[in-house]
């Protein structure tokens, strides 16, 4: 029973996304296949839905408002359901599905679905608890989408987070976790679409999907509140359209997908420029249209992309005077963040540089990138790597497709994207779209060997593929065992929740106590995600100051009446500058646990 709201919420959201995606169908190329259409409808719909929720949420973000946004999408989707079964059969029948890849994909999807039901846990070191889930929870409580003052990263673009909010509103936090299932399917669909476009048959396409599903580095971006798999899906959708674009409608669709990607993550700004460059280059070389017409079409696609992502950047401009907020290190000279404390900016930038350091910046490191991405992915936060297949077969796949302009365009985009990734932030999750392209070229290379290689080469190729898939499963499944256990066993889930969530007893007390109206959370590293009650956190984890004189305990406490704060949560050893002394006048101890105390303000 506890899973039903999560399932229901996800079904409503996906149905609504399919309905919104249906609006894009007139823009699809006439001769695109069923799988192209389905993948682009789902991804485009998710993007449009997230953007619409964000725009409406600037003014009103109650459950009723969310339902009003979802409803037109659901109604639009009703029209496509009669044909949906037929389409599903078409998709499943890309060839008759070979049993082995089907079993592999199914096992990963089953693990994702079951693990997705687990309640989110953890501390501020997890991005989901710190901001991907925390922002949506606060937006729902405040009934408006605003950056959370004590967590600067909630001002990032939020196409996916707004959908987390809709899911939480309809089905609780489990629903947001279960969304990983739909996200992963959306990415696998666009991977299949690209694989078929590159000339792979049904069997090859199934193997592309199986390789993608068993890449631990890709899978890591699909669950636990990460948005990277959907982000990669939006970029691949843009690439799918860009390199076949001929008419204005196609370029408009390309612009929409680029805009959605830029509304999801700042790193898409670079990807957008690269996609436009590759599209310009290959359309010009292919002489499919005059240069003038091409420039006009690409110009229009850029305008569309800017319009689609504008709400996210305009919001930051209005609130912080800086569209890209907080600005990454390279953009600081163009976008001085005057409303951000220098110390906060320094902390955030230090973290960006630290997490994106990877294996260094030298030319040697760059040349070793394919090797390191395969064998040393932990250094890129790669969660177990991308498997052996892209390194082993990828070059052969590229060789086999060397006269296919679409393949060369994709390969150039992948190369430029990895160069940009290497020069900016070497975090594995940010390169998931390139990993998908790697899997496609890998299967192309494998088919090349299967057709022409010696018996020995074919045997070693089978070993490579087996190692890729088995090692991927070996990394993925044990990583999700606890989530699956928590999903099926309420006793284990409760035990795990108490073990891995800091200060949970205090939050349980505060959430259950009717006299609590608002809470002061004094520790900067305490996760306010777990508070169901409104709270004020004077100091954020990056040094954000949400109150005047936020480092002064007396000054903070003196504002409690004006802020309608009724309780104070104090934890140890995480004091910082707001250290609450014993027997502070005006405070009554009402709850005490290990390393945590709750006071009532008299």
């Amino acid at each position, binding site marked *: 029973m506890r899973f039903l709201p999560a399932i229901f919420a996800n079904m409503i959201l996906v149905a609504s996304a399919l309905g919104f995606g249906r609006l894009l169908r007139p823009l699809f190329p006439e001769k*695109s296949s069923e799988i192209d259409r389905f993948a682009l409808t789902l991804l485009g719909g998710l993007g449009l839905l997230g953007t619409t929720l964000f725009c409406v949420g600037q003014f009103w973000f109650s459950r009723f408002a969310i339902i009003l946004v979802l409803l037109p999408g659901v109604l639009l989707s009703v029209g496509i359901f009669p044909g949906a079964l037929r389409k599903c059969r078409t998709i499943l029948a890309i060839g008759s599905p070979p049993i082995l890849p089907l079993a592999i994909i199914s096992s990963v999807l089953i693990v994702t679905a079951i693990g997705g039901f687990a309640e989110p846990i953890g501390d501020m070191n997890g991005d989901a608890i710190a901001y991907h889930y925390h922002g949506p929870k606060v937006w729902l409580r405040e009934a408006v989408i605003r950056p959370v003052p004590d967590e600067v990263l909630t001002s990032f673009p939020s196409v996916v987070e707004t959908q987390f909010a809709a899911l939480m509103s309809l089905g609780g936090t489990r629903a947001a976790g279960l969304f990983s299932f739909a996200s992963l399917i959306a990415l696998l669909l666009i991977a299949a679409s690209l694989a078929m476009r*590159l000339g*792979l048959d049904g069997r090859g396409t199934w193997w592309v999907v199986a390789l993608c599903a068993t890449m631990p580095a890709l899978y890591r971006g699909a669950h636990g509140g990460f948005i990277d798999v959907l982000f990669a899906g939006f970029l691949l959708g843009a690439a799918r359209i860009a390199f076949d674009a001929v008419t204005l409608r196609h370029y408009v669709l390309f612009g929409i997908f680029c805009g959605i990607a830029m509304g999801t993550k700042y790193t898409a700004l670079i990807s957008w420029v690269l996609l436009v460059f590759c599209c310009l280059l290959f359309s010009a070389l292919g002489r499919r249209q005059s240069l003038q017409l091409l420039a006009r079409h690409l110009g229009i696609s850029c305008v569309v992309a800017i319009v689609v992502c504008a709400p996210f950047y305009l919001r930051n401009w209005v609130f912080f005077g800086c569209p890209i907020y907080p600005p990454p290190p390279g953009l600081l000279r163009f976008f001085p963040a005057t409303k951000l404390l220098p110390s906060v900016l320094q902390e955030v930038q230090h973290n960006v540089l630290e997490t994106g350091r990877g294996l260094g910046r030298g030319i040697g490191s760059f040349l070793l990138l394919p*090797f390191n991405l*395969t064998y040393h992915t932990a250094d890129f936060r790669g969660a177990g790597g991308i498997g052996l297949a892209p*390194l082993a077969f990828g070059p052969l796949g590229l060789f086999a497709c060397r006269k296919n302009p*679409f393949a060369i365009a994709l390969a150039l985009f992948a190369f430029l994207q990895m160069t940009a990734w290497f020069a900016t932030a070497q975090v594995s999750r940010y390169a998931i779209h390139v990993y998908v392209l790697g899997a496609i070229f890998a299967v192309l290379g494998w088919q090349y060997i299967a057709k022409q290689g010696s018996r020995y080469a074919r045997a*070693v190729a089978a070993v490579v593929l087996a190692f890729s898939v088995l090692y991927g499963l070996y990394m993925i499944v044990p990583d999700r065992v606890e989530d699956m256990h928590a999903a099926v066993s309420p006793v284990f889930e409760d035990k795990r929740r108490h073990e891995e969530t800091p200060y949970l007893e205090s939050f349980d007390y505060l959430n259950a106590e009717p006299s609590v109206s608002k809470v002061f959370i004094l520790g900067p590293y305490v996760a306010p995600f777990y508070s169901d009650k409104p709270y004020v956190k004077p100091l954020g984890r990056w040094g954000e100051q949400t109150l005047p004189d936020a480092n002064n305990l007396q000054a903070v406490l003196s504002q409690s009446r004006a802020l309608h704060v009724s309780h104070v949560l104090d934890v140890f050893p995480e004091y910082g500058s707001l250290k609450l002394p014993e027997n502070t006048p005006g405070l009554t101890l009402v709850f005490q646990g290990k390393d945590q105390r709750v006071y009532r303000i008299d």
Partner: protein
Amino acid sequence: MMRVDSENIFPEKVEEPRKWFSKTGALWPRLIEFWLTAVVVAFFLIRVLGSQTARRLLSGLGHSHFQ
């Protein structure tokens, strides 16, 4: 006005590599075999033998051998 077509929306077939093989004789197939073998051996050395579990096992074996 240039011709606008949508022919290349359809997938091109992967190029038949037979001709290329015949031109390069035996070198190219041997190169592929070597490359694939190298990738598997590197995986075995780095990811399998280089893993924490393998290191613990190997150090355990070494320890018991020298006692």
